[in-house]
Every structure is written in structure tokens, then in C-alpha cells.
């Protein structure tokens, strides 16, 4: 299987990006897919490991060696069939996943990982182009109905699986368009929204009902929803953003990333005018938070034409190579440069915001102090370095410091669900809540995490819901053994 010596003959060749100058002029995706020959050679680099760590690294448990081999052999259609068996939406993960599979790739121990993610994308795009992606006919309906609340990746995955199992599925979405964070959160330059439309139209054809602009808990009470359906699965994401508690927080010009990014998605979709709202054009932008969301804000700001953009990370810069205590196959805590970061802007590390300074209630500057991480009593603690204070000009401060959990207020008030100390619904077992027939999946279950986890959890939840509904052993597929690397 695969090419036995493939990894010795070819170097890793990831997809190329459109030129910086070019890509920052528009909102289109920046990744350029590779020619077929390249893809096949790259598939042939897979070593077909006896223990494919990549599959453990992948939250979906994708059969990665299988599809790599099939690409290598040019059997794209079969590769697509293999891929779709474990992944409902390879077109999303193929674009957006940070690829923990590649971090776990055995080849990455002393070489460069197989381009698993790009392979995945090229498989699924080819499948769409070739017309291999056809609506799946559901032969027999079970007569049970399921409400999926939230249309992000978790909700869509759960809906897709439950629909395939023959249940009648309605997806409720409070926004005007389907997709959750994929729609409103991921910039168009990473995921053009027709990709979502393409999928939704398939799902619709397959029989899923989508109900947009309906907020459960407000427009429809949770109790009523439970009454109307045999099961309800809560996939409402983890919308509570982490806030900044420093003097000056109430100044104008401070926004959460989730106020900033969705607006731009709407603008691209033609749903929002191009000038009002939060725009970075001509501004000195500071982004707090060095993660992916921060990066997205960075790329968006650059495309807006910001005067300057600085992305600030609280923690010190990670090493360029894996640290001693961060070995393969763990996620490598190494210095990375995202496509947006490559496009421009400054990055600062080990900076703690101490104060926001404004004029007339409008933000003008941000004050920071350098920190260091020291070990005290066996624990790592952050300590400011005295005398290292500095200020940056700042007209627009975007807070991208992560999320603390789902917004459960209406669920708590209307259904009185139990909540764990971590702020997610508590239940008797995975994906179940304290309320019978009410399930939870995605970020609402796990806390803010990756799209791939959302899809995976959506699938696993569906498996349990289906089994409960038909009162039999699980019949939907599972991702299999869950075992952490360490």
C-alpha cells in the first residue's frame, strides 16, 4: 500500500498560497490546490504505518492511510468514499483544520508530515467537481423527529447522521443564514461561503429542514421544542467570549472578535453595508490574543486597510522546534506563522495589557507590560517584569482571547439543566444532559474547540441519540477508540 519508498523520494509539498499582495485585495480563499500529479506523489509519501498515529490524532478517526494510498494510486473516487465514511464535511476540515493528524504523523518525527489536510481537501473538491457527491437517499423514515439547535459544524454533522439514520431532522438557527461559526466567524478568505451553501443544499435535498432566524429559548421555548420532538440536541457553540478586566475597558473602540468578524462575513455576502459597523480601515488596530481568531482578525484588518495592526500574545513566543517536554505525537507548541500573520502586521509576545488609555471616551493607546513565566512551588506563574511597561497607539482594540463556554441562560431558566463547574451541561454520560431527550454536542459540550471536534462530537452524539430513539444497540458508526497520546 502506498509507495514503499515514497517518503524517501519526495519532500513535503503543501498547497501554495496566492501572493500576499494579490490575496489581501479580496476576500477569496488564499489556498491554491495542487496539480494532480503533486497530490499523488504526496499521497505516496504516506508510510502506511502499522500504528497510524495520524488516525488517533484526528478527532474524527479518519482512515488517513487508506485515502492517502488511494490518491497515490489515482483512485480518487474510492478515496472520496473512504473519506466520507468518517467525515461528513471534508470540505470544511480540508480548509480549516489545524490538522492534529499531521502533528501526529509518524513521518513528522524526523521529517515533514504528509500533507493530509490538503489531500483531504483535494479529494473532496474533486468529488464535487466530478459529481460523485450525490444526495443520499433515505430509504425508510423512522417516524421520529429530532431538533438540532444550532447550525454550526456540530449541529450539521449531528443532523446529517440522524437524517441518514431515517429520523426527521429540523435544524434551528438563530441567525439568518446556516453555518454557525463557519458562516459568521471564519473569514471568507479561509472559507468562501458557497462551500457551505453547496453542502446545505445537499442536506436539504436529503430531507433536513432548516429553520433560520429562530432563537430557541426566545422565539420558541425549550420546553415546547422538547414537546414537539422526540429528541433535541443542543449545538449552540461556546459563545461566551473572555473579557479584559483592565482600566479603560469602557472606552469606545473596543470590540470582541465576534463583533468584528461576522460583520465582515455579512458584508461579503451583501447583507451589510460596507462602511458602517466595526471597520479597521485607517486605524491602528491592536488584537489581543495570539490564536486563530486573533489571526482572522488580523487578516480581516489588513484587508480593511488598517494603518497598523499589532497582534499581542500574553504568553512568551514558543520555540521554533518542539520543546523537550512537548514531544511527538503531541500537538507541537511551536512558533507558527498563519497566512494572515504572513500578510503583515506586528506580533508581540509576553505582553500583559495593564491599561487602556483614551481621549474623550475614545480609545487612543494601550499600555502593556512584559511578563515572564516562572515556576513557583512547582506551578508555572506569570510575573510582570518591572520597568518593562510600554504603550502602543490603538484606535481599535479587538479582543480575541478565547471563549469561556456556552450561553446556557435560557436552558437553565426554562429546563433547569445541570451545569458543570466548567460551564457546560452536565449529564449522566457523554452527550446526554440532565434532561431526558435533551442532548448536547460541539463546543456547547466540549467548550470552544476545533471544527473537527465539533463534527466528530456531532456524529458521536447522533449515534447515541439514534440508539436511544430506536431503543437498540448503536448502529451509526463511531470514531472508535479514544485514547490520548499522553
Amino acid at each position, binding site marked *: 500500500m502506498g509507495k514503499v*519508498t515514497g517518503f*524517501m523520494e519526495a519532500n513535503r509539498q503543501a498547497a501554495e498560497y496566492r501572493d500576499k499582495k494579490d490575496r489581501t485585495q479580496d476576500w477569496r480563499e488564499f489556498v491554491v490546490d495542487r496539480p494532480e500529479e503533486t497530490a499523488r506523489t504526496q499521497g505516496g509519501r504516506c508510510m502506511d504505518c*502499522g*500504528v497510524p498515529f495520524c488516525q*488517533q490524532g484526528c478527532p474524527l478517526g479518519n482512515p488517513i492511510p487508506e485515502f492517502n494510498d488511494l490518491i497515490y494510486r489515482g483512485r480518487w473516487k474510492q478515496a472520496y*468514499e473512504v473519506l466520507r465514511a468518517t467525515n461528513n464535511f471534508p470540505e470544511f476540515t480540508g480548509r480549516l483544520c489545524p490538522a492534529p493528524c499531521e502533528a501526529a504523523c509518524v513521518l513528522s*518525527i524526523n521529517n515533514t508530515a504528509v500533507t493530509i489536510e490538503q489531500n483531504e481537501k483535494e479529494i473532496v473538491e474533486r468529488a464535487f467537481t466530478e459529481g460523485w457527491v450525490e444526495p443520499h437517499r433515505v*430509504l425508510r423514515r423512522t417516524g421520529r423527529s429530532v431538533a438540532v439547535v444550532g447550525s454550526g459544524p456540530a449541529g450539521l454533522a449531528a443532523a446529517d447522521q440522524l437524517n441518514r439514520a431515517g429520523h426527521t431532522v429540523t435544524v434551528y438557527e438563530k441567525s439568518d443564514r446556516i453555518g454557525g461559526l463557519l458562516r459568521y466567524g471564519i473569514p471568507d478568505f479561509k472559507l468562501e461561503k458557497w462551500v457551505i451553501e453547496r453542502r446545505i443544499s445537499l442536506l436539504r435535498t436529503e430531507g433536513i429542514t432548516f429553520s433560520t432566524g429562530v432563537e430557541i429559548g426566545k422565539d420558541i421555548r425549550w420546553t415546547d421544542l422538547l414537546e414537539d420532538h422526540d429528541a433535541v440536541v443542543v449545538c449552540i457553540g461556546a459563545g461566551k467570549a473572555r473579557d479584559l478586566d483592565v482600566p479603560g475597558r469602557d472606552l469606545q473602540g473596543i470590540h470582541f472578535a465576534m463583533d468584528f468578524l461576522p460583520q465582515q462575513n455579512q458584508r461579503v455576502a451583501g447583507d451589510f453595508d460596507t462602511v458602517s459597523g466595526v471597520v479597521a480601515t485607517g486605524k491602528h488596530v491592536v488584537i489581543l490574543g495570539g490564536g486563530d481568531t486573533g489571526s482572522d482578525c488580523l487578516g480581516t484588518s489588513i484587508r480593511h486597510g488598517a494603518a497598523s495592526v499589532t497582534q499581542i500574545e500574553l504568553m512568551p513566543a514558543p520555540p521554533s522546534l518542539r520543546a523537550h517536554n512537548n514531544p511527538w505525537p503531541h500537538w507541537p507548541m511551536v512558533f507558527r506563522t498563519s497566512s494572515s500573520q504572513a500578510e503583515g502586521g506586528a506580533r508581540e509576545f509576553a505582553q500583559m495589557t495593564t491599561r487602556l488609555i483614551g481621549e474623550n471616551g475614545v480609545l487612543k493607546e494601550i499600555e502593556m507590560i512584559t511578563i515572564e513565566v516562572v515556576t513557583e512551588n512547582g506551578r508555572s506563574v506569570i510575573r510582570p517584569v518591572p520597568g518593562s511597561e510600554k504603550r502602543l497607539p490603538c484606535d481599535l482594540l479587538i479582543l480575541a482571547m478565547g471563549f469561556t463556554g456556552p450561553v446556557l441562560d435560557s436552558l437553565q431558566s426554562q429546563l433547569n439543566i445541570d451545569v458543570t463547574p466548567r460551564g457546560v451541561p452536565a449529564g449522566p454520560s457523554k452527550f446526554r444532559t440532565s434532561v431526558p431527550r435533551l442532548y448536547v454536542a460541539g463546543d456547547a459540550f466540549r467548550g470552544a474547540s476545533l471544527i473537527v471536534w465539533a463534527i466528530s462530537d456531532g456524529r458521536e452524539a447522533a449515534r447515541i441519540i439514534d440508539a436511544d430513539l430506536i431503543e437498540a444497540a448503536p*448502529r451509526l*458508526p463511531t470514531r472508535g477508540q479514544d485514547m490520548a497520546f499522553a
Partner: protein
Amino acid sequence: MRQQREGLYEPSTEHDACGMGFVAHIRGEASRGIVEDALRILSRLSHRAACGCDPETGDGAGILTQIPHRFFQAEFERLGFGPVRRRGYGVAQVFLPPEPVQRARCEEIFEETVTSEGQRVIGWRDVPIDSAQVGRIAGQVRPVIRQMFIERRRLVPTAFERKLYIIRKLVEKQIAEAGCDPDEFFHVASMSAETIVYKGLLLPERLPLFFKDLQSEEFISGIALVHSRFSTNTFPTWDLAQPLRYVCHNGEINTVRGNRNWMLARRSLLQSAKFEGPIDRLFPIINASASDSYQFDNMLELLHLGGRTLPHAMMMLIPEAYQNDPLMADERRAFYDYTSSLMEPWDGPAAMAFTDGHVVGATLDRNGLRPARYLVTTDDRVILASETGVIDIPPSMIIRKGRLQPGRIFVVDTNEGRIIDDEEVKRDIINRFPYRRWLEKNVVRLTDYEAASAPMPTREEDLMRLQRAFGYTDEDIRVILAPMAEAGEEPTGSMGTDTPLAVLSDKAPSLFSYFKQLFAQVTNPPIDPIRESVVMSLHTAIGMGGNTFDETPEQCHRLAIPSPVLTNAELATIRKVEDGAFETRTLSLLYDVKKGPEALGQAVTALCKAASEAIDEGNNLLILSDRGVDSRHVAIPALLAVSAVHQHLVREGIRMQSGLLVETAEAREVHHFALLIGFGAAAVNPWLALDTLTDLCARNECPLAPEKAAKNYIKAIDKGLLKVMSKLGISAVSSYRGAQLFEAIGLDRSLVDEHFNGTASRIQGVGLPELHLENQERHSRGFGPEAAFILTDLPTGGQYQWRRQGELHKWNPATISRLQESVRADSYEKYKEFAELANNESAGHFAVRGLFDFVPAATPVPLDEVESAESIARRFVTGAMSFGSISAEAHETLAIAMNRLGGKSNTGEGGEESERYIPLPNGDTRRSSIKQVASARFGVHAEYLVNADELQIKMAQGAKPGEGGQLPGHKVSERIARVRCSTPGVTLISPPPHHDIYSIEDLAQLIYDLKTVNEKARISVKLVSEVGVGTVAAGVSKARAECIIIAGDSGGTGASPLSSIKHAGVPWELGLAEAQQVLVRNDLRGRVRLQVDGGVRTGRDVVIGALLGAEEFGFATAPLVAMGCIMLRKCHQNTCSVGIATQDPELTAKFDGTPEHVIRYLLYVAQEAREWMSLLGFRTFDQMVGHAEKLVQRPIIGHWKAERLDLSSVLHVPVVSPDVATRYNEPQQHGLETHLDRKLIASSQSALQGGRPVVLRQPISNADRAVGAMLGGEVARKYGNHGLADDSISVKFTGSAGQSFGAFLPRGITFHLEGDANDYVGKGLSGGRIAIQPPAQSSFIAEENILVGNTLLYGATAGEAYFRGVAGERFAVRNSGARAVVEGVGDHGCEYMTGGIVVVLGRTGRNFAAGMSGGMAFVFDRDGEFQRRCNREMVELESLIDESDIWLVHDLVENHVRFTGSALGRRLLDNWEMMVARFVKVMPTEYKRVLQQRRAQRRSQQTSDPRAIPAE
């Protein structure tokens, strides 16, 4: 007195082997001399026998002679029995219970039966014995030995013999039924008017002392057979001593269980006028509880008394290899072909001597796996024995010296007064009937019929459903079916297996997975099915069997097929046959899937009934079919159906009235076919596997036409079947069929007893209800609710590679990464996380040991009082991984680590570079303490051997027991070639067996050889766990091994067929416990240390191993993982990405393991072990060994299968007296104090010190074995492989040399022998010179007589050898550097040779040059027939025209004449110009290519010398 099953001990696994021989006068003139000579043979072969824990108790010895009438006449007078006529009476030599009441009852039954059968009891005689000659243990079970005399009345002598037989069978049966002999003392050693047997549980030399009769001058005979036994056990058994009634046997019948069953199966067909009709009342003909030899004797006796001559019966039972031998005459082939429809071969290594008192003879199995030499003297004596030189005969009295050849028979007819050779004996037999014509008329082939069209392939929409319902996985198709269809070969894998036993798996594994293949180790050799294909056969005949006693044309009316795997069209054709001869009935295996747990059992019962009825209705071909599975119907597992029907029909005695075929969707891999055939099916049609292939081709996933894919697939299965059979040393599928050579793990005994009767299943487990549930589970995959919408793909599988959704693996991302992190971060805490995972994973999911709990001590020992981790770690060794299989970097890292730790690393099977003996500047040493000696003997020379602390003989390896290996040429780098003494770029083949170990006494010999060459080294023997490994271990302990390694089924790097990785061998817990139990029970435990390996990973594993009996522990995979192995499982592809199992410099550069990684890991393991020891209350490790009572079976709640296991047999602790050792406590006695070499060494001091050369003279006898090994060891220790200057020590011997003459002789020593020699001359020759010639006084023609034995120059790396005479089989096998001249060789000459030069001046046997990849041979082709006897798969034959070759041969022949005085050589030289043209040069194709390349290379570098011979 017989042993009972106890703990893990299975009495049916006993083996024996031995020395045997006979002396006869050609005209049958009785004399005292014959008897005395025979007794002398016994004592001279005593090194081939063994004694147990009690040195006075032998394994058995005996003598068979003609009735000494004069002696008995005198006795009759003394006893007042009145006068008797010669041959007018029979003598029964009877073993009786010592208890008087029991004995009286036995005698009474005996007398009554004699009378009721119309004969007269003359009287009883107490056989005088000297009980002081019996050992303690043998004495405890000594029967009372009496002779009964029976007068012949109203019968001719031949009918009287038959009558005596009938009486004996009836008496045996009645006594068993009467229960008057509860301890089974009763045994009739012989009962005949022609012959008598004296035998007992005695040391060979004590036999005549014990039986005073044998001392009498009146005790004379014209024929005497003797036998001394080397048994794997010492559970005392007087009755199993040999000779038996007609034969004595050196060897082992591997297929005895099947042979016995087939005999039962023909019960309804057996009729003989000689026995006056049906012989039902004599059943059981074959004594199921006796040894294989005993059962063979039973069969031979029946055939002989039924009217066949002994030679004829022998030909039926031990046929030659006839199917693939182009040299065999057609009439002879026809005879064997015909006979195969009457009797299936009794297959296995065998040298059999037989006699009926008139004719005496011997025969050898088809593969010639036992030695037998004979000589004929001027005074008309014929002496045959396992060795030459057993009786001293003046050279001038010898007319002829010969050896038994494979498949040949040798007969002395004393009535006719002449020796009859094979050709003549067989000519008479094969011309009795026109067998060829009979066959032509009656045997049909499929091609004789109009081909029927195959059923329509399964429709695409049904295919997936059926595949799922029959348990197919994606992996089955991707890894097994598709590659077999594409390549025609079974796929290979690496790194063993680490998935759960079937009984612990939650994946509803098929019934096939519950069975493990058995394999040969020690007591008989596996065969190389590729290189020795000449002896292998898959030829299958389907149809009714015949009456074995009769020979009529109709009896061979059968359908002959070349392979037991049928295509869909072939099966359809068989179904359609309507010529009156075949009446076919298809029996459906379907039953209602919805029914309760008893449904499967009911379905099987109904099926068996239907089978009986079908036969009653006249059908003679039954087809069991699982076609038709749908949403409501599931099929009885095909294996269960086949075995149940087969055994049911056998029990009914009607099995032979019908052929049994199976049409099954389940069978897809080799193991499945092996099981179906091994449990009784004649042929298998794997219809769904074939439909799957058709589908793959249709979808272009297989780039072949469907017919070609099917053909390749069947070819792959066929090859795989040959391999499975050959692993056990079985060469014909006809004897493999129904032989049940499997062990079940996790099946309920009642299920096994009912439907797989005779199969070992030692830990109980699931029964029919559970199998039904698993059947339902699989069915639901295709037809259940889940299938309703997931019909697009198959389950992933995950058997061969870890998959997240697949089967569990011990080595998975979590365990691998934790272990690696722990050693890299030097974190014991991290290790504990690993151990926690590893130990908990074990619990109920993986291994038998996961089902154990410890019994904690009442008061734990404080941890700091427990033996230190460093001390415990000295018991650890790393696995035998060769440099070649792993990189030098990895190999040396392991060695350094183990040397620092005080443990031991192992060279593996690939030699070791001598630079590694020199310590590194930092004090580290890269030398491996353990030097392995494996079948290929790569790099095994004197220097290697003397540089070892332990010499390990690898009998088998866990990943592929019973198989050889191959290192493809592209992997043989300069460096590897140098250390393996071979040529870079030339493929290296490891033979499946050690060609010097075909039996237990051979192993004893190799142990002796190795101990002789390096007395300081401990000798260990590596075995693989399987049922019976305990009895093998007992034999190995008696063979004086000092350590026995019990390897589990899971270990092993290197390439191996997937079916071997998965389905051969059993977990070490079973093997270790069995070995411990059997060794303790035999009081053999104290002489050996036990070591266990194969998946040992944690301290808990170590402690469990110790409690089950192990003192030492081998680790292989885990240290590799610690060094960075990530279980890529690509060892066989040279692409290990972390630089461990590869020789690619680009990859080895990436190796980043260190000795510290290994050391830390092993110390963690020891530390964890200490913690458990503290809990268990043990201060020292030794205290713990063998205390299995400290383990209890963990109640497994919730695992519906595991909870049915019963591990009490594993935890059994034998009850023995306190003085019996339960762990190592005394050294083995090798008896080297008086070795001849001590004398030679003493006389060679000046030369050894590098001074003046010495010339010595020395008489030698066959009891002087491994002469030269110790002397050579001295030289090698001082001077390494360079040795001394030529002829520094020159010894001139006279006499018959014992085995292994000149073994490992290094340069500087010259041995010249005038006389003859036994097997293994020049074994491992390392540069010395050996010359052997017949004594000057001999009158026979040297080049026409046998001079030296089998397997000469095995693994020789350098040196010269000259033999003036003919050598036996396998001359120069695996020679890699020696030059030799010989005047004729037996079969398989130059097999596996990789270097060196062999000149044969006379005839060769068959299969010359098989597997020869290097070196050259020159054969003087006197009769122009050589090319037909040469196996030309790897070699080319050329004329001798090259100038340098001509000179090379000339010089060697000249040397030959100089050293041996060869007259033949002289004649050749005298007519050299003419003779040159008749030489044939045998040149390995690959070697030639490599040499040409190298020459071209060299030429481009410098001008070369035309006479230069390629350096090895």
C-alpha cells in the same frame, strides 16, 4: 502404566526418537553372535538415548529376536511342559500388574480367550530378571513380566500368527473393559510363534543384565532388532519401549491422529477373507493412547496379517515422494497413486527397521530425515544401525557399505538367503496388478467432464451484505485478498501480532481465529516447501475410499484434483457429474438466525443426521454449503460444520463412503483453508472470496482479468497450504487432511470433545451458544439494523495494523508514546502511566495474564528489603534480532545497553563483526553476550562461538515458528555479507529446519558440539509456545541444554507470512506454565533455567512470568520502542523511518535511540517488579519462581466470553516431593571431562603456543563425538579466525568417527581419518582441513560405497575437505566458504549453499543445488543424467571451459588424490583432457551476475588476475 492429563500436560504430545539397528545373518543362521552384536549396538548407541532425572532410569531399550527355540525347549523341560515342536507354539511376552489379584484376573482372561479361540495354553513362565538393574523411578512402575506359551492347534503357521493377533486384540479389549487393570500395566510386548521382544524402561547397556534370558548361551537368533529410546519425558512407560511387535522406529509420525481417524473412518469398509469377514470385533485396531510408533506398528501388523508382505505394507504406509519425481518409473508412480486410495501416508521422519522373523529390512521416509547406515560382511552378516562404527569389523571383512536412502527400502530375505535391493523388492510389488491401467480407467479428472458454468457472481448490492455477514473487513480485502490475487503470494508482515486472543476479542472473530496452527520443533524438522518441493504434494482425490485389504480396479474410482481449492465453476462441474460413479448431495448449513442460543447446536445435530442419511441413500459426495444466507438465515460456521460432520461420520464408521467438500463464503485466508482441510474436508470452494475478486476486477481495483485473479489467489492459497503443512514436516495433503494439527484456545472442552475431538483446548471458553451469538453479530453486520444504511463500506478490521475503529492492539498510540516519553524524559512516573495502560489493557482484553490477580502477602515486605532493580535487571535479555534485520546502530545500542546493565543482548541469526569484541575507549562494549545459532548458521564459526557467554540454539521463533526466511540480495550489503560470510548482493536463505537437528537426539548432539567448542558458554534452546512444548522442554533438558527459552506467539521482527504471524503459536503463559509443570513433574527442572519472551512489557508481566516458572526474561519489541520504534511494521521493506529495522544509510542516520533509553526502560520494569514483589511478600526474585499459587483467576465480570475461561490448568502447581527442584539448582553433566580432544590439546601444546607443528596419531570410535571442536576452540580463542599456519596440528585418526567429526575446525588443524565417519563431518568448518578415506585393507571400491554420513560441512565458512567415498544426503548444505571434493553425494547436495566450492566426482542424488545462491559446484557427470537430478531454479549448468575453472578443479582433484589416495581421482587426472568435458559447472544465476558486476567494477579500478577466485 500411562500418564493422565494434568495441568497443561497433554499425554498425546509425547515424542520420542532414538538409536536403532539390526543384525542379521543373510541365510538366517541363528547364532549367539547375532544377539551379542545387536546388544553391542545398543550400548554403542547409548549417546543417542537419554536418561531422566534419575540417571539409572533410561527411556527404554529392547531387542527383538527370532524365537530362541533351543533355549525355550530347555525351559519347557525344566518347567515340565513337555516336548514342543519348533514353530509349534507361540510365546506371549506379557507385562502384568504387580498386584496379585489384578494379575490373576488378567491371566485368567488371557487363558480363557486362548481356549475360546481354539488354542491351548501350555503354561506360564516367570521371566527371570535382575531388579537391581532398574532405576528408582522405573522400578516403581515395573510390571511383572511373564511369558505365556500357546500351542498351535489345527492351524498352519501363518494362520496361527493371525490367531495369536486376534487373541491379543480380544484380550486387550476384555481387560480394558473388565477394569481389572486400573493402572494399565497390562501389555503384550510380543505374541508370536516367530519372534519375541524383550524390552523395558532400562538403560540400553542394562538390557541383557536385567533380562537374564538374554545372557544364556542358548539364546540365539538369526535376526535381532534393537532400539534405544530418547523420549521427551520420563513419565515411566514400560510398554512404549521398543522394538514393538514388528518394527522399531527412529522418528516421528506427525499425522498419527489423522491416520488413526481415517482407520476408524474405514471401519465399515474393512473386510478380509483372512480375518473371515468384517474385523469389527478387533477395533480399535490402533491404540489411541500409545506413541506414534506404537500406533504405526498396530497398523503395519494389521496390513501384514491381512495378507500383505512387510515391504508392501511399508510402501503403503511410508510411500516415496512420487508425485513430483521425474526420475521415477511410471509403474512405480502408478502403484503409489493407486495405493493412495487405500491408505493415506503416515507422514513424518522415520527410519524403520522391521521383521517378521524371516524377512528383515528397513526403510526411510521420503525426505530421508533419519540416518541409517549398513554394511555387509564376508561372513554373510548384515548390520544396520543409526550410525556407522557400532560394531568393530575388520576392514578386510567388509564387502559393502551403504546407507538407506530417502523413500528406499532395504530387505534381507533369510529364506531366500539374499539381500534384495529397493528396485527388486518394489518391482515385484508394483507389478502385481496393472495399476496404471486401473487408474486410467477409474480415476477421473475435472477436465474429463464438460465444464459447467459457474453460478452467477453475487450481485453488487448483495455482495457487501454477504461480505459483512461473513465477517469480511476492509483489511481482508486490502491486505489479504487483493494482494494474493495480484501477486499469487501470501502477503508478509513484520513485528508479530499484538491483538487479543479470539476468545478475548469483542469483534466477533470467526471460529477460525480460535485455532492455532501447530508446528514442528526439535522432535521433527519442518520442511522447506519451496526448495524441497520434490517431496510436497497437494494432490487430492475425492470420492469414496476402498477396503484397504483389497486391491480391485474400482477402488481407485475417484476424482483427482491438483489442488484442494476449487473454483466456482469446478464445483459446479462436480455437482453436475452424472456418470453413475458420483452421487452428489448438497447439505445446507443455513439455520434460522432469530432462534435462541441453542439454535446452532440443533442445526449441527440436524446437519450430521442429514449427512448420515445422505450416505444411506447412496450419495458418495457430500457438499456442505453456506450459500443462501439472507436476512432470516445464518450459516453454521463452515469449520464447525466440516469437523462435526467428519467426526460424526467417523464415529458411525461410514466416513469413507463419501467424499466431503465445502462450499463456503467464510474461507478467505490460508489459515481458513488449512483448518477446513485439517478437520476433514477434501476440498474447499471459497465462493464469496472468489466473487469478491471478480467484483474487485470489475471495479478496476484489481488490474487483472477475473480468471487470472482467481488463479493467482488459488496459487497463493496453495503455496500457503504447503507452508502450513511443511511447518509440521508433513509433505502430502492427503495425510494432512483430518490430521487436526491445531490447538484451540478458548473453546469449551465439551464443544471440542463433541465436534473437534482430539484437539487440545486447555483453558476452556466459549461453547455453541456463544458461537451462535457471534454468528448473529456478524450476520447483523450485513442484515441487521446497522446495515440498513451503512452498506457502503466494510468494517475496518485492524488485525494487521492498528486502526482506531478496529481491533485493539497492545502497541497503540497511547502506549507507544508514553513509553517513549518516559525514557526520554527519564520519568518513572511516565513509565508508570505506560505500565498502568499496558497492565490494564491486559485485563480481560489481551492476554491470558490479564486475567490473573495477585494474592498479596498477609504482610508485605518493605520495598527497601526487596532485591534491587539493578540485580533484577541482570535477568533481562534482549531479543534475538540480527544485524541485518536491524541496523548496526540499533544493534550496537542494544548491546551497549545490556552490557552496562549486566543483562545480555543477542546477536540474532546474523553473526557478529569481530571488531565488536574490542571494548570502546569509554569502556562500553558492543559485544553481544548471547550468540545465536540458527538454521542458516550465518557467521557461525569458531571465533564467533568462543566469544560467547551463551550459545543459543533457535529452534523456532514466535512470529513464524517452523519457517525459514530469506534476506533478499539487495539488502545484503558489503558489511552484512562480510559478517554473514557471504557475497554482497546475493540472496540469503534460512532453511526452515536446522539440518543437523531432525530429532531430539540430534539436538543433544548440537548442544554437545557447542559445549565442546566453548565449555564456558551456557547453551540455551529457544522454543515457541504450543501445546506439547512442555514435553519438548523435558527432552531438551535431557539433551543437556542449560537454559530453555519459551517464546510466546506474539513476538518477532522480520518478514513473515501474515497467517503465521497471526495463527501459529500460543501465548507464553500457556507454554511457560506447561514447561514448568512438565519439567517439575519429571524432576528435570533443576537442570535448566527457564526464560520467557514474546510481548513481555511491564514489571507485572515479569512477576507473572516468574510465578509461572521463569527465571529470566527476554524483551525485544519494548526496547525497540524505547529506542524509537513506532511499529511501522515495515521491517521487511527496509524502509523503517526511524532507522531501526533498515540498512538504508539515509534512514539509519535518523536513528536517535541511545543505550540510556533501553537501560531506563528495563530498570523501570525491574522497579515495577520490585513493587509487586513487595506486595507479594518476596524479598528475592528466586523465591518467587514457580509459585503459581500466588496467582488467582480474576473474576471477569461483564466479558461474556472471558468469564467462561478456566485458567486453573495454567495455575496448576504439580505436587512433588520436597527434594524435587522447582527452579534451577544444579548444572548439567556434559561428560566432557573425558573428551578425546583433551588428549589432543595436551599433545598439541607446542603448536598451540605458536611453536613447532605436531603430528599425532589417534584411534577413534563412533562414541567419540565432536572430535576437534574443543581443540579448535582453543585455537580460535587464541588466534581468532586467522587460526594457525596450515598443518600446525595434524592428527591421523583410524576407526569410525562419531558425529560432528572436525566440527568448527579452524585453520591450522588437519584431520586425516582412515576409516569412516558419521553425520555432520566438518560442521561449521572454519578453515581447517579434513580428509577421510577407507582403510587401506578395505576390499570394496571406495567410490561406490558410503564413507561419510549426512549433512556434511553444514554452515562451513572456510577450509577444505576431501572424502574418498560417497556422502549421504545434504552434502555441504549452507556451505559458505569451504572447498570440498567427494566421490558421490545423496539427495539435496549443496542445498542453500552461498559460497565455497564443491567438486563431486560421482553421482549426486535428487534436488542438487536447491536454494543454492552462491559458490560453485563441479559435478563429474558420469551417466549424463545430472541435469535431471539438479534443481535448476536458482542455478545454471555450464560446461567446464573457463581456463581458471579448469585449473581450479584440477588442483582440487589433485589435492584430493594427495590427501586421500583416491584411485578415482588418480584416473581422472591421468585422463584429464578427456575427463574435463564431462564435468558440469553448477553456477548460481544471481551469484554469477553479482560476480560479473564486481569483476567489471574491479576491472575499472585495476587490472585483475584471471585466476583469482572471488573472495567471500
